[in-house]
């Protein structure tokens, strides 16, 4: 009996501390990197554009305008009309005192050009002539087609 108890107690003496350390490190990593709420319209499916420069870390003044398949215009998934978009753009132009801040248009591949044109017209009316369209350089999350 005494022997059995001894062998059982030595089995539970396995050092758990490093294992728990590693597991907690992993958990902290996932908690930090996880984005629970996406601040973009996830319904938008982009067209492939393998030859454009990769969108890396964008400057903080970058403005991403989303145009959904049905023509819904939004910024950070907050819907707006052309007048509101124009006010935002003019406000930014006045704040940064120039029109060179990057404006990206994130339009669905099925969006009609008339809806993209509405956004482009607002941009040009605010004095922004250079526009960029977001495309997919490389699929990682699963393809659209």
């Amino acid at each position, binding site marked *: 009996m005494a022997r059995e108890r001894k062998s059982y107690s030595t089995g539970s003496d396995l050092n*758990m501390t490093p294992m728990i350390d590693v597991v907690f490190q992993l958990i902290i990593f996932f908690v930090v990197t*996880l984005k629970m709420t996406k601040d973009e319209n996830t319904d938008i499916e982009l067209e492939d554009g393998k*030859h454009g420069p*990769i969108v890396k870390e964008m400057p903080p003044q970058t403005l991403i305008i989303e145009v959904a398949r049905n023509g819904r215009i939004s910024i950070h998934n907050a819907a707006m009309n052309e007048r509101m978009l124009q006010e935002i753009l003019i406000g930014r132009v006045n704040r940064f005192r120039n029109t060179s801040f990057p404006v990206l248009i994130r339009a*669905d591949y*099925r969006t009609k050009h008339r809806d993209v044109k509405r956004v482009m017209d607002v941009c040009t009316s605010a004095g922004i002539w250079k526009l960029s369209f977001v495309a997919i350089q490389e699929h990682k999350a699963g393809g659209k087609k």
Partner: protein
Amino acid sequence: MKKSRKRRITDDQPELEMTPMIDVVFQLLIFFIVTLKKEDILSMLSAARPAADSAADPRNQPNVINIEINNMGFVYRGTPVSKNLLERRLASMAVYDKKVSVVIRCTADSPHKFLVQTLDICYKLQLQNLAIFSM
């Protein structure tokens, strides 16, 4: 008696139940691994958008490549072309001059993907002067 009691307390401490804790931690790990989504690598295709009234009609300007985009696809020099054919045509032009102006004119009902495809071809061929007009 006092001594033996103390010893029992110290003996109990390392026998803390680790199993539920590890269970919870693994549950959390699995949750985070499952909810983790890989994100696509995005690219950026830039073009100028001249105001309609500020520029002269691009069709009448020399040394300009005109591409029309409608709801069916691409039109190059008045002829509907496939994406591959458009690329070949543009490649033959890009050989002589990379700084040639490319004017992309889109009809209102054309899908956005054709515009992106055209810009992508231009980027592939390193054509830099790109302008978008809407019809």
